[in-house]
């Protein structure tokens, strides 16, 4: 493992725009994804900033109601379909999944590149729609509003999501085949890092769920463009059917968003406690269990939609089953700390943040899954708070944990620890200030997607807006210091954290085909006795 500057690695093996745009290297494709989703995160963040500014006062004074509706729609579309769903799997998963199982690349490198292009193409449609005037259907596209009444760029946006969906499907397909067929010698299923398990489970959802979203969009498309009447109430169609099909995908999709994050947390918690994850097998299986059970609960979004009361009962009941594997994970992470050797680098701080905020977000999910409470809080800010807790407090924290954790491996440079810790703190405080008040707002009855609201809700909204500006600073800081570290960061060794995964056994940054020699795996995951005594020299 030589560390001379001349060593050839995936970044300096070839130069020029073409060498990136036509690359088949999963690591470079991971970075291409990183740029794309960062762009969409800031677009979505800019919309969020405007939403929060508008909600500072009860009157709708900053933008018109029509513009406001477009803002939250495009905020959600940018964030969900073009940032969060590709975020961890397509960036960190792409980069590390093959390395972690000791493969030279994914099974289908060309398809991998294609799926990035599909995301870009889909993103281009969505961006075009945003620039040309936006859409105002809400990210849920409920019919008949979206088919008959909305006058924005519904079709362009829907097409963008459709194309991005194929990107997601192809990534999932690639991962599944890779995990089944490309593992290095000795890498048995129960030696795989939990991050790989989590991405595997995610891929299952991607291939089984996304096609249903695709066909739903197609049916929306033909109804809007060709006036076929599949959901049209005027012809005896049922708009609630649309909601079923939409949520058949979109509920499992929330686990596409959170499972990879959980995988990151497993890696981080283990590394910074120097202990195998407690109950490894349970944590591994719980990922698959969440993926499977996640398909059985979608009707909990339809409790007041005129879905039959009996179906409501079934879906409420099933919803509680997903909570159990999630609980298993949270408890096992906590138990991992017991008798560990815990250090507090930035990734670990984010991991703590994740566990705490995901717990709150998840537990409030249980409120929503209860029929009796949901009839009051559905479509209020309580729901908004719930999902930002799991997605922003959960997944984004995990994404940042992963970015900091693997940054030295990706770039060969350390990020500045002090700044990073500060920004983690700012994100945590800003986040809670933004979204905690929304739980109260929701229970008080403030409906979501409201451009103007009664004055008694103002105080809490002001708090929320204040929090959002703190949060924005917290998110901008990593942008700055990550960029800074590319040039000025301390050069990182192969294994700066004393971690166990195969990715730490190869150089930083890794060579083009990941390993100079195909590794042969002889130990379980997280066997710290294999690294102990090597360079454990953490700042």
């Amino acid at each position, binding site marked *: 493992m030589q560390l001379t500057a001349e060593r050839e690695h995936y970044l300096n093996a070839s130069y020029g725009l073409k060498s990136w745009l036509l690359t088949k290297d999963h690591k470079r494709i991971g970075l291409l994804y990183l740029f794309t989703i960062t762009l969409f995160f800031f677009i979505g963040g800019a919309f969020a900033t405007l939403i929060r500014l508008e909600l500072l006062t009860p009157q709708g004074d900053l933008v018109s109601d029509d513009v406001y509706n477009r803002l939250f729609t495009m905020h959600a579309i940018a964030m969900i379909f073009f940032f969060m769903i590709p975020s961890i799997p397509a960036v960190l998963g792409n980069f590390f999944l093959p390395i972690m199982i000791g493969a030279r690349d994914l099974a289908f490198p060309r398809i991998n590149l294609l799926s990035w292009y599909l995301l870009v193409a889909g993103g281009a449609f969505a961006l075009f729609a945003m620039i040309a005037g936006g859409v105002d259907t809400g990210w849920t596209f409920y019919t008949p509003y979206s088919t008959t009444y909305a006058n924005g760029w519904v079709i362009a946006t829907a097409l963008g999501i459709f194309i991005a969906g194929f990107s997601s499907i192809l990534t999932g397909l690639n991962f599944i085949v890779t995990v089944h067929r490309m593992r290095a010698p000795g890498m048995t299923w129960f030696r795989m890092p939990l991050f790989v398990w989590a991405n595997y489970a995610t891929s299952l959802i991607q291939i089984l769920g996304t096609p249903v979203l695709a066909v739903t969009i197609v049916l929306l498309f033909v109804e809007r463009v060709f006036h076929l009447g599949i959901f049209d109430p005027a012809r005896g169609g049922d708009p609630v059917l649309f909601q079923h099909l939409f949520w058949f995908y979109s509920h499992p999709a929330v686990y596409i968003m959170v499972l990879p994050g959980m995988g990151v947390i497993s890696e981080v918690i283990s590394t910074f406690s120097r202990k195998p994850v407690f109950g490894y097998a349970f944590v591994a299986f719980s990922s698959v269990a969440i993926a499977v059970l996640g398909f059985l609960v979608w009707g909990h979004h339809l409790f007041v939609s005129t879905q039959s009361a009996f179906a409501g009962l079934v879906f*409420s009941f099933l919803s509680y089953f997903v909570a159990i594997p999630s609980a298993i994970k949270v408890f096992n992470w906590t138990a991992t700390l017991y*008798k560990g050797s815990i250090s507090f680098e930035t990734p670990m701080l984010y991991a703590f943040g994740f566990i705490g905020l995901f717990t709150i977000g998840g537990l409030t999910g249980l409120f929503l899954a209860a*029929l009796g409470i949901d009839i009051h809080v559905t*479509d209020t800010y309580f729901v908004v708070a719930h999902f930002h807790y799991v997605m922003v407090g959960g997944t984004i924290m995990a994404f940042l944990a992963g970015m900091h954790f693997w940054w030295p491996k990706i770039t060969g440079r350390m990020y500045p620890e002090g700044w990073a810790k500060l920004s983690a703190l700012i994100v945590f405080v800003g986040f809670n200030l933004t979204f905690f008040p929304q739980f109260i707002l929701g229970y008080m009855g403030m*409906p979501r997607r409201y451009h103007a609201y009664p004055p008694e809700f103002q105080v809490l909204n002001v708090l929320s807006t204040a929090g959002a500006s703190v949060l924005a600073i917290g998110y901008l800081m990593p942008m700055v210091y990550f960029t800074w570290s590319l040039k000025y960061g301390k050069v990182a060794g192969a294994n700066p954290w004393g971690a166990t995964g195969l990715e730490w056994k190869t150089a930083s940054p890794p060579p083009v085909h990941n390993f100079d020699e195909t590794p042969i795996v002889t130990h379980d995951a997280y066997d710290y006795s294999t690294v102990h005594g090597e360079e454990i020299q953490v700042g």
Partner: protein
Amino acid sequence: MGNIQLFPVQGSTLAPEVDHLLYFFLAVSAFFTLLIFCAIFFLAIRYRRRAANELPEAGHTGYTLEILWSVIPFGITMVMFTWGASVFFKAARPPADAIPIYVVGKQWMWKLEHMEGRREINELHIPVGKPVRLTMTSEDVIHSFFVPAFRTKQDVVPGRYSTVWFQATKPGKYHLFCAEYCGTRHSGMIGWIYAMEPQDYENWLSGGAAQGSLAENGKKLFQDLACSNCHKEDNTGRCPALPGVFGSTVHLTGGATVKADEAYIRESILNPQAKIVAGYEPVMPTFQGLVTEDQVLQLIEYVRSIGAKPAPGSAPNSPASAEKPATPGAAPAKR
């Protein structure tokens, strides 16, 4: 704005039930959140890394703990489910003697009609202490009828009827929101519920009954639309007589039966061929496009008013009580 309010008023019989359920959830959540937070905090401090080269023993995983922390949360969630479902079922089934009110949502207003004929827009007056049952539909997109103080809401879907009911406990003025996104002025589709003492309510009702009661208007329509040409009281001719129909079980050609509820009457008017009464020819024309949703509701109310009519709220075969699960599996009124 000075007085910060952090909890909504309890304005209905349902509100305390939902709130109790909430307290239970809050307690469970607080317990687990604190448990996790404290555990992380103390473990992280207690086992912080003291030497750079320290390597802790890899512990063993026991099944006991795993089972423990799967089973206990599962037990708790089952309580959550059962309790939540029981509250929901109370909210789903209106009592037999509830006062019927009709609601039509449209972009972006609520149109409400009382049986006695008073019509309101974005305002609803109701008596305290009496259950009220809203039968709702939409003229365009999906809306949702939401009264935070009553802790209940229900989507209002075009082409179908949905039901929500509540019983106000305190006189007062409560927010009415549209909670399902319905387009540009969604946030403007709001109004007020006025819960009044029954006496005041009676006065208010009689105050503006100039437009004629819902059933009276329906009766007039029945004449104007020439329904009465066919549907004669004495059951002569080719058409079934309508008195007594509402709430009864109708036999259809083909052998199925259907309960004559709102949805069935509506279908009979807009889509008469869908279900043909046994012994009759399918000659009734459709009135689709000729009548508005409000008018359909008036016609329904008229048909209801000439249905079996014992003293309100008492007899088991009163129209409203007949709407309870009479014939499960009867040919469903799907839309």
